[in-house]
């Protein structure tokens, strides 16, 4: 069983951060913050009854999407989940068209036909969020297969929650990815809950051991530390790109909100204390911000500016979506067949 290599953080701390490095981390900070603020706006849209249906917020898990996507090229593929806004944004989607999709508007990424659980964006290699738990596994592994068959060096990342470890098809696919050395990285976002059930009640044996038993190289990482996630992702992506085969990255994380926006009374399945402890001690934004300040790479003012910029951008995106028209009724019968 391979453990994650010690994060590079230790060594780097001793050197002085270059401006380039600092800017790079600040950019990732801004991405994480964009996701955070985006999701808070989504929650407000729900609470104020402006959004149809529900949404599963990514708040708290931002470091994973951002850290992993930082290791990807625009033409690399990802597949995402019901909790997918973070992945979409991290891979390059823009907030305005995402909001539009969430509101069922014609300007949305899917013309309003997909909604929160199905945002796909071909231009950024996003093969779509998926409302079937584990549903992205076939698509990502197939995309990796395709990349290999076409002689491309694109890789595919399959994001999924710990709950997807219950879906047998995941193991069928890991087996084939290992057999044929497909360039796919399975990123398990272990936030400890499958909806309203703790995963100690649903998952026996060893999560990492499962990947390894199917011949997939595995690592574990602190999913709240974007630098650690990014470092691991760089390693695994490089491996995959070189043709060394699939990998599994197990990330510890936590979702701050309910399973979906409507899940507000959570005491029957998890405690307020547990929630508060994660927010206080393991917040991905706080962790990165603290480190950057410690490095002298950014000041409180820098962060205030970032926050202002992001808030403005997200608000503008939201307003765009609120003002945007619904699809024409004739759209209902379009796009059934290519």
């Amino acid at each position, binding site marked *: 069983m391979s453990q994650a290599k010690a994060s590079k953080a230790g060594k780097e701390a001793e050197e002085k951060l270059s401006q380039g490095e600092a800017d790079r981390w600040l950019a990732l900070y801004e991405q994480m913050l964009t996701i955070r603020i985006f999701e808070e706006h989504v929650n407000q849209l729900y609470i104020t009854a402006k959004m149809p249906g529900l949404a599963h917020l990514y708040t708290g898990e931002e470091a994973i999407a951002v850290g992993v996507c930082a290791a990807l090229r625009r033409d690399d593929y990802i597949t995402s989940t019901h909790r997918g806004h973070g992945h979409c944004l991290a891979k390059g989607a823009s907030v305005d068209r995402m909001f539009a999709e969430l509101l069922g*508007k014609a300007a949305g990424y899917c013309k309003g036909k997909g*909604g929160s659980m199905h945002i796909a964006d071909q231009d950024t290699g996003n093969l779509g969020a998926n409302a079937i738990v584990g549903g992205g596994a076939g698509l990502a592994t197939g995309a990796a297969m395709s990349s290999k068959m076409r002689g491309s060096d694109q890789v595919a990342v399959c994001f999924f929650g710990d709950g997807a470890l219950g879906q*047998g098809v995941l193991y069928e696919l890991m087996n084939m990815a290992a057999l044929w050395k497909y360039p796919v990285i399975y990123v398990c976002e272990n936030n400890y809950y*499958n*909806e309203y059930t703790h995963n100690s009640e*649903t*998952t026996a044996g060893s999560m990492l051991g499962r990947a390894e038993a199917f011949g997939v190289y595995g690592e574990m990482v602190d999913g709240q530390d974007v630098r650690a996630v990014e470092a691991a992702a760089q390693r695994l992506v490089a491996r995959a790109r070189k043709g060394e085969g699939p990998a599994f990255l197990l990330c510890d994380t936590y979702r701050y909100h309910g399973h979906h926006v409507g899940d507000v009374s959570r005491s029957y399945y998890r405690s307020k204390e547990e929630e508060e402890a994660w927010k206080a001690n393991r917040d991905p934004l706080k962790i990165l911000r603290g480190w950057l300040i410690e490095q002298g790479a950014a000041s409180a003012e820098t962060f205030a500016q970032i926050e202002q910029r992001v808030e403005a951008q997200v608000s503008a995106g939201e307003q765009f979506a609120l003002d945007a028209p619904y*699809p024409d009724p004739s759209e*209902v019968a379009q796009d059934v067949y290519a």
Partner: protein
Amino acid sequence: MSMPSTTISQQSGQGVREMTLGKAINEALAEELRRDPRVFIMGEDVAEAGTPFKVLSGLVEEFGPARIIDSPISEAGITGLGVGGAMTGMRPIIDLMFGDFIALAMDQIVNQAAKIHYMSGGKLKVPLVVRTTLGATRRTAAQHSQSLHAWVSHIPGLKVVLPSTPYDAKGLLKTAIRDDNPVVFFEDKMMYQLKGPVPEGDYSIPFGVADIKRVGSDVTIVATSSMVQVALAAAEILEKLDISAEIVDPRTMYPLDKETMIASAKKTSRAIVIDEGYERYGVTAELAADIAEGAFYYLDAPVKRLGAMDVPVPFSPVLEDLTVPTPASVVEVAKTLCGRV
């Protein structure tokens, strides 16, 4: 007169409560769990959470986690456990949250559960209930809105139930649990809050007996699940247009009470069938074909079908609402059928 015509009135001497369909399901389960120690429930988030629809609330408190079992997200696996358990002395109820997920369990339901009794020459039995849902307009898009009951209705060895009222839901679920065969029980997610009268005390409703939900003389509307409610609303409108609609609810897709549908169509000489599954190769095809054949010499016009539009269910409310039959669309078809254009 949109009250169930042949149902509650049959129950006598007992109090009748108004309750939601969700509560009626909950009561049926609780009573059967109390009555028969072999009955248990397994599914995702069925215990403390009581399912995302809250339909099972309170059961784990009364029956404990050994009988109300939270499972991993393994639809095929838990259905397989249900089949094996049913063959060996238990009476499992497997909860498949969204009907779309039966796609993950079709092998267990169809290649195993449905065939074991026959393949074993009648020796093994599979008293299994698979409870799942159907119905759109919940803004949950293409993978959480399907009504896939046609698939299992197609398969010999299975029984398939679609209740349309709280009364029917409770009585039919009891019959399902007591049946020695695999039964797939579809609940419309949008009807859980629908209220209706439910008598106190134990009762069950036999499979294969259609219920005439409204008596009429000009047009027969055969409707399933929540489409019965749509048909009832349409009938009110039609009444004002002097068109008297009779509403037949088959209640079980299999066994199917063809006689009652056909008798009604013979009487009215016009028929519409409504179902929330995709129209193409769906339940409306079977019902329409049966009526067209059985009432051939009595029909004044072709049988009309109204299913869900043949598109993946879109998210956007302005699109999604176009995909399902509504009172207005039923009224339009009925008017045309009755020559009122």
